[in-house]
């Protein structure tokens, strides 16, 4: 089977937060959704505003795995980074280490993160967040297909004067690919 992945298209996100709530519903979380949608705005010659859904990107070389003193984080052959809550002692070093704000602090003091709904993949279903997203800002499929799709979307955005790029496709390869606007962090009004 060819490799699967998820594409998160920041340019399409409308901040309905349906993914975030679907994640809590699917994983029976009382709070601390594994996806958090954060607003960004910056003023250049005009106002740019977008939303960034933050969750685990399932890195090929996860820093959380490297820093966890308990070996609670493992990466499988399928490219998924899985957190074992039984081994987790709640030291939260991974939370600080993750550059993508993918690790969440849960009400039980331990950490939690996106499991890619691996239990749904097993029964041939797509992750809960993908299944609800009304604007195809989250899509699931074969990695190659998603990279091509992202290329088309980037071209389309460029034709409307919006520059965007794909994160995670090559070097710092991640299973969750991000199509992001070309803006720099330092300009964000709301950090």
């Amino acid at each position, binding site marked *: 089977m060819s490799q699967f992945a998820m594409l998160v298209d920041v340019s*399409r996100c*409308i*901040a*309905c*937060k*349906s993914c*975030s*709530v*679907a994640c*809590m*519903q*699917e*994983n*029976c*979380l*009382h*709070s*601390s*959704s594994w996806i958090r949608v954060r607003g960004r*705005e910056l*003023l250049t010659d005009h*106002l740019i*505003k*977008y*939303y960034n859904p933050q969750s685990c990107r399932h890195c090929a070389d996860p820093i959380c795995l490297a820093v966890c003193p308990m070996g609670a984080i493992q990466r499988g052959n399928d490219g998924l980074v899985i957190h074992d*809550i*039984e081994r987790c002692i709640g030291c939260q070093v991974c939370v600080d280490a993750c550059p993508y704000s993918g690790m969440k602090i*849960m*009400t*039980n003091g*331990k950490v*939690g993160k996106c*499991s890619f*709904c691996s*239990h*749904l993949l097993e029964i041939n279903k797509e992750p809960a967040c993908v*299944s*609800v*997203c*009304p*604007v*195809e800002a989250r899509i699931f499929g074969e990695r190659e297909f998603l990279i091509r799709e992202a290329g088309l979307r980037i071209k*389309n955005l460029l034709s*409307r004067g919006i520059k965007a790029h794909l994160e995670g496709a090559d070097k710092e390869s991640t299973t969750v690919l991000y199509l992001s606007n070309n803006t720099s962090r330092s300009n964000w*009004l*709301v950090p």
Partner: protein
Amino acid sequence: MGLYIRPRSLGIISKPLERDDDLRTSICCLCNGGCGLKVSLDHEGKVQAVFGDRDNPYNKGKICAKPMEIVQTLYGPYRVGHPLRRINGKFERITWEEALKLIAQRYNHYSQENGTGSIVGITSKIGGSYSKLAHSIFSKLTGMANYGTGPICMESELKVRKDIFGNGSASSPLSDVIKSKIMLIVGNNCAQTKAGQFHWISEAKQQGTKVVVIDTRFTETAQMADRFIQIRPGTDTVLGMALLKIIINNNLYDQAFVSEYTNGFEQLAEAVEAFTLKQAADITGVPRNVIEELAEDLAVRKPGMLFEGRGIVCVNNAGASIRAFEDLMAILGNIGKPGAGIISHINNYGNARDLIPKKDVIKPDRKRSATALYQAMEEGEIKMVFIAGNPCVNWPDSRRMTQAIQGLDFVVSHTLFLDDSAMLADIVLPATHWLEEAGVQASVHRVLQWKDQAAATYAESRSGGDLFRQLAKYMGLETSYFPNSPQKAWELERTHNKSIEGITVERLRKTPGGVHFPCPANGQEAERLYESSLFPTPSGRVELARKNNIAIEYINVFDSPGNQGVSPEKYPYLLSTNKVASHYHTICQYSNWAQEMEKQPYVEMHPQTASELGLTDGDPVRLETVTGSLVLPARITFSVPRGYFTTQPYFGLHSPYRQTPVNSLFPVAVDPVGGNFANKNIMCSASAEGRAGQ
């Protein structure tokens, strides 16, 4: 009462949902988006999760957060399970029979002693089609006057559209947008308020429909648009008039349509001369070339559609703006064609007629406007109120509403939750949730969809359909007029309303996505209205001018009801409310997940306004209007103009949020043309509130 948690999450490990494969099909009854749902029950038969229904052609499996959040509220601590009676300030559990007997006795007493007008219903949340029908039969038999969603939501839109086209309903389904060349979205943040249906607009945009958003805030919808036009608050009428003016003066309108199917064109042409384009640009803050370009676009790109939202409806000069934009669509000939027309969540399919013989119909002995209701309660003219809704949070001057209800002799609340209004009741009756009631639901696609009861009724809750029939019995009224099941209710409604006669429950059950209306006995459904260019106005034509022969009269927002005579020195800013994706009316405030998405209400302001007030992000700010004041944390954003504040309207004191309702800052003032209450553009003052530790 406090926060509650799902017990499973207390454990060390939260396991994924245990799925059952036997999902029930339902229709979301929240925003009138009409999204198809799949409902999952746990082993006890309780709803444990809600998914989108992939077989529903309108949402194709996609949903917004709201129906998922709603599941959490079904079995939470605020849900009412049993009839309660207030005795010495405390609620005590009573039986349904006791409750109904008491209500019946009081009802008959006030009705005989003080007249039918001494009892009113505030009934914005009456339930599904079964409950609505029973409520209307009950009202006809008793002469109870009701205040529904109209004044707090769409009265102006309904009335103005009815004046123009003869029918207040949407003229076209949202799904038509993919056939349109331009979509004008005015004061409507549908990316948040109808997220589950927003894919229609994003798909249309990808196919080449030009999406233009006119709004005061840079909303999520604006962000997705091809063009966003930021307009000064309350000046939409002037923009609409300027567009009309350019189109009329340059002969860009559909001349054949105007001469054959409209009245009042001369008056309209005269009215739009009230401003020069330069003046319009100055008033609206929209540059002249942008207005001209939009007019050009509208003239060239046909068919075109209009989707207005609460941003121009729930304001104190709504009637004029709505008329300007709808007249605009009319003279462009954007009506009655695929891809043209007006989209709205107003989907009235007409009332059932002659359900009750004339001899048994009682008319309310007094008529009062929504504004007069307050005084009538305060002065003791009204003795008893039947509440299905939460007026103490969502009616303006909420504090006054609360006090007025407190002063009544007898208050009944038929409710899901012990909310701010139910807490004032003498009798609280537990209501069924829409997932616990079968019935027909209308949607923004102009379809009716059937849903079966998806879950068992909670505890002793009863639907309005059952409640009104049983109450009628205790009151000694003729009960044979009442249907005793949702199916029978629909059958009765269908056979007494020609416009839906062809829509049987069987047909609805067989048709995913439902059936368009009108659909008369011959079974022919109409996807959109006016395809035959027949307009149900008295003249049979589109009425471009008002009955007083003045087409459109712009009133400056500072001279509009609620702001008239208010000192601009003392109240130099404007206050509005706006919607967010995770809340709906006042019901999602009882969901943990909604609370995680929106931790607390905040007030958006422009960075310059914030610095004028000495505020940084998160600082407490006191907002004050003529009716009250409230402290909220500041949220600094470039999305709103200077001198303008906006916050979210959903919260009450009796909820996990424990918030003074923001509607208490809005005076009881209505749009003079359409009668809608305003919950935007009210003059206010703002100041930094002392910080903790100071």
